[in-house]
């Protein structure tokens, strides 16, 4: 059993813990900006988790998912911040 194969499940668990911390901030966050920041971090961590899962399951399918999450997450963050900033999305 190689070292990487031993480490991978622990790394995935650690990312799950990071997701739980982000979720806690998402529920707790006193302001709207905090919640958007928590969502932003949540999608980035999910992306890393999916990439690790791809190594573990030895499949390249997860990259397409990761790329989609990266794009849609960025658009979501921009739109939400824009809404907070201007009270409107498309002017």
């Amino acid at each position: 059993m190689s070292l990487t194969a031993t480490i991978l499940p622990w790394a995935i668990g650690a990312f799950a813990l990071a997701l739980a911390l982000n979720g806690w901030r998402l529920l707790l966050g006193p302001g709207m900006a905090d919640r958007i920041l928590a969502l932003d971090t949540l999608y980035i961590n999910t992306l890393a988790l999916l990439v690790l899962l791809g190594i573990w399951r030895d499949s390249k399918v997860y990259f397409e998912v990761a790329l989609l999450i990266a794009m849609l997450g960025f658009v979501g963050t921009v739109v939400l911040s824009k809404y907070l900033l201007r009270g409107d999305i498309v002017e």
Partner: protein
Amino acid sequence: MQNLPLWLDLLLAALIVAGVAFALIGSWGLAKLSDFYLRLHGPTKATTLGVGGVLIASALWFTYKTGVPSLNELLITLFLFLTAPVSAHLLIKAALHLEQSRAKGSAIPPTSPRPGPRGR
């Protein structure tokens, strides 16, 4: 994943551990720090680096396994590293606009008077 050469095994393990450590520290900072401007610091640096480490490890592993350079990860890395500063900038602009409260003893001074409801 049985017959990796030792150097690649060690390199992959080190990259994954470093990435996980960065991501965990960033998320912990997001959960623990006391006001929004401090909280923005954790995820925008640490988490981006953490994802970078994991993606490099993945690129190395799939390049070794298939024998052809694996460029998907490079695409994701490039995209993330381009978009992370933009979203952080927009977030802090929104927070300044909303005048998020600061923690006591924060080093960040109060903003100038509000520029009006539709101002930048």
